[in-house]
């Protein structure tokens, strides 16, 4: 094991909360059902529930950025198993790796974390010292099983789980790398919030990056997700737009979110290529149909829900309400 590998047996607290899930109080469009789950467990304090991903067995992982935890929610009864990620932890993003484990951009310890799906054991790989305070953001696996990640302070990196080698590069335009995604064709892309651009990691061996300029200046791209065709959908925080770039012909299309003051935070494209967005201005989750170009809104029943990321499985869109410490599930196609 390399020196920078830490085995953090910080423990899995089986602090199961069994708060029953709640149904939407407000009317929901036909064909949809909205369910909320309490993200808090006894003694957890404020959780700061944010990024979510499917664990592959019907449960959902979610990050507790405020209390330094990764959590595993069982939607059947609302039970939550809590994994303490270590002193000072403040996890931002979580994805499920090809090994079935949860892989976390653990900003508080400036490390990549792996949580074993069977025993919830935590392993940490800190970034090299010269990249302290990377402000780790989001990760994705490439087709070869290497984990790529972004850091808002102007870095992106690659971690090879097999050899535990980590490479980190300075982003070409400095601060801003935020969301990252992989297309079905196997290409990797990230967006820069501070730099307002899209970037392709076009050489996965050397890490070379190619910047693609969006049509809207200073758009403030937060997240990016691919549809089945490899088109890239981008949530624009500053402009309040959702944009789409098609790498096949270099084209862009842009739509402004409804309302007077939209703020597009996150984007997720479901398996049917419908686009799910979160709009802080409207305090709502939006579903955008690229065929009809219509938005459908799912406002939260509480103020300042602040859903910062979405993910899901076929028939279910999931998000973490960081402002209310709840996890939301929207069943669609009912």
């Amino acid at each position: 094991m390399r020196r920078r590998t830490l085995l953090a047996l910080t423990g899995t607290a089986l602090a199961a909360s069994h708060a029953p899930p709640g149904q939407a109080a407000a009317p929901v469009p036909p064909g949809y059902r909205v369910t909320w789950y309490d993200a808090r467990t006894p003694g957890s304090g404020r959780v700061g529930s944010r990024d979510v991903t499917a664990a592959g067995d019907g449960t959902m992982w979610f990050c507790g950025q405020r209390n330094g935890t990764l959590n595993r929610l069982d939607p059947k009864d609302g039970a939550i198993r809590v994994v303490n990620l270590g002193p000072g932890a403040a996890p931002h993003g979580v994805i499920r790796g090809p090994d079935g484990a949860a892989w976390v951009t653990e900003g508080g310890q400036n490390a990549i974390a792996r949580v074993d799906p069977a025993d919830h054991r935590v392993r940490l790989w800190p970034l090299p010292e010269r990249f302290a305070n990377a402000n780790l953001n989001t990760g994705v696996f490439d087709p070869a099983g290497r984990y790529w990640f972004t850091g808002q302070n102007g870095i992106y990196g690659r971690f090879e789980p097999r050899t535990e080698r980590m490479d980190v590069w300075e982003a070409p335009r400095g601060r801003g790398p935020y969301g990252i995604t992989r297309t079905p064709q196997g290409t990797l892309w990230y967006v820069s919030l501070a730099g307002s651009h899209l970037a392709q990691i076009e050489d996965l061996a050397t890490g070379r990056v190619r910047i693609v300029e969006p049509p809207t200046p200073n758009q403030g791209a937060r997240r990016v997700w691919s549809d089945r065709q490899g088109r890239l959908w981008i949530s624009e925080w500053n402009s309040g737009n959702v944009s789409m770039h098609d790498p096949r012909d270099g084209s862009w299309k842009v739509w402004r979110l409804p309302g007077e003051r939209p703020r597009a935070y996150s984007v997720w494209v479901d398996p049917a290529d419908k686009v799910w967005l979160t709009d802080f201005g409207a305090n709502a989750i939006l579903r955008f149909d690229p065929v009809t170009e219509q938005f459908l809104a799912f406002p939260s029943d509480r103020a300042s829900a602040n859903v910062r990321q979405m993910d899901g499985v076929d028939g279910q869109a999931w998000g973490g309400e960081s402002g209310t410490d709840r996890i939301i599930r929207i069943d669609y196609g009912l």
Partner: protein
Amino acid sequence: MIRLALLALLLAAPVQGEAQGEVKAENGAAIFAARCASCHAAEAGAPPGPGPNLAGVIGRQVGGDPGFDYSPVLRGAAGQVWDAPMLERFLEDPEEMFPGLWMGDNGLRAAADRAAVVQFLRRGAGAR
């Protein structure tokens, strides 16, 4: 002799204080660059980014930059004015002070870091 020494100490104290303030502001600039600058500018006239420009924030109303679209919780706090102690409390746990803040969970854990950032913003604003 003792009087002379005391006098020398008294005369030196403000100079030391200013020097410490300079050091703190320099540290604050570095901490600001590492922890805040991804979203916030601190130079007067710079356009807002994902967060508002913080040049001149001390002495400004909460949610007081007309060029920025703030979180509802900050718009609702208009009337309060940022001063150094309030800004230090905010930096310790922003969401504790303003629950539902769009900014997210980005506080500074070390009191010295918070003080240094506030000193940096004070100097930037020309307030001494």
